[in-house]
């Protein structure tokens, strides 16, 4: 079966996020107030062949941790989603 997966990669707590900080600083000048704690991350979508949804999720999580993120600075979570 084919499963659709979304992987979210975020910086680990405690790791500086200059991109998020830059966006946050720029917001008031653009008329957006009351926005805080901006964190920037990455996202991947893909389809994966597997026997079951459990197997799909396990492979996707392994892909997320071993390749799509760098564990020294990032956390990654995979989740299954409905076809796009």
């Amino acid at each position, binding site marked *: 079966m084919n499963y659709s997966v979304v992987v979210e990669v975020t910086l680990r707590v*405690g*790791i*500086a996020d*200059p991109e998020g900080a830059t966006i946050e600083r720029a917001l008031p000048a653009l008329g957006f107030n009351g926005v805080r704690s901006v964190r920037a991350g990455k996202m991947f979508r893909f389809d994966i062949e597997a026997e079951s949804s459990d197997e799909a999720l396990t492979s996707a999580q392994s892909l997320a941790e071993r390749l*799509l993120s*760098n564990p*020294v600075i990032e956390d990654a979570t995979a989740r299954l989603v409905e076809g796009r």
Partner: protein
Amino acid sequence: MARIGVVVFPGSNCEYDAARAVEELGASAEFIFHSSTSLGDVDGVILPGGFAHGDYLRPGALARFSPVMDAVAAFAAEGGPVLGICNGFQVLTEAGLLPGALQKNRGLTFLCQPTTLVVSSTHSVLTRAAQVGARLVVPINHFSGAYTCDDTTYASLVDHGQIVLRYQDNPNGSRDDIAGVANEAGNVVGLMPHPERAMSTLLGSADGRVLLEGFVSAREIVH
């Protein structure tokens, strides 16, 4: 004459420059394509700058899986001199051959500019010929050069003299101004600045020579 292998990933672009610098120092340079599973008979390996595999995903993330990296790891484990310059440094951290990670520059822009480096330790194949405290003008050329690591790793880097080069004026937000680090044994080194671009006053600085001179002749010493 020392033989230096220069690894070429698809997307590498400083391989010719690294080879030219090595040859100017009287050593010979050989390109080793990333699909190769052996390094051949070399006295040292350089992972040059550039954008291996387009830097897609993260700098170094895909390159670390290139077949040649197993050979590089084995060579490093035997004490062979390994030098990662810029993108090569990123590949070495992704491959786990050096601790830490390189994040986007603090200013979120690519930076190509001269920097002044301070030699912090001579316990490495790169800095062995330099003097602690020496100031070297060497250019940087990167987007993701801010060295990052957790506190435990940092403490251990300090304890073992693994921080080999620091920036005098931190350009990118690196932790503790770190520009280059070595492994504990000192035979694997990575740095973001480009010593091969500082080989001649015609191009602005010859301060990179002392670093690369130390590196190309390192094998004799290690053995």
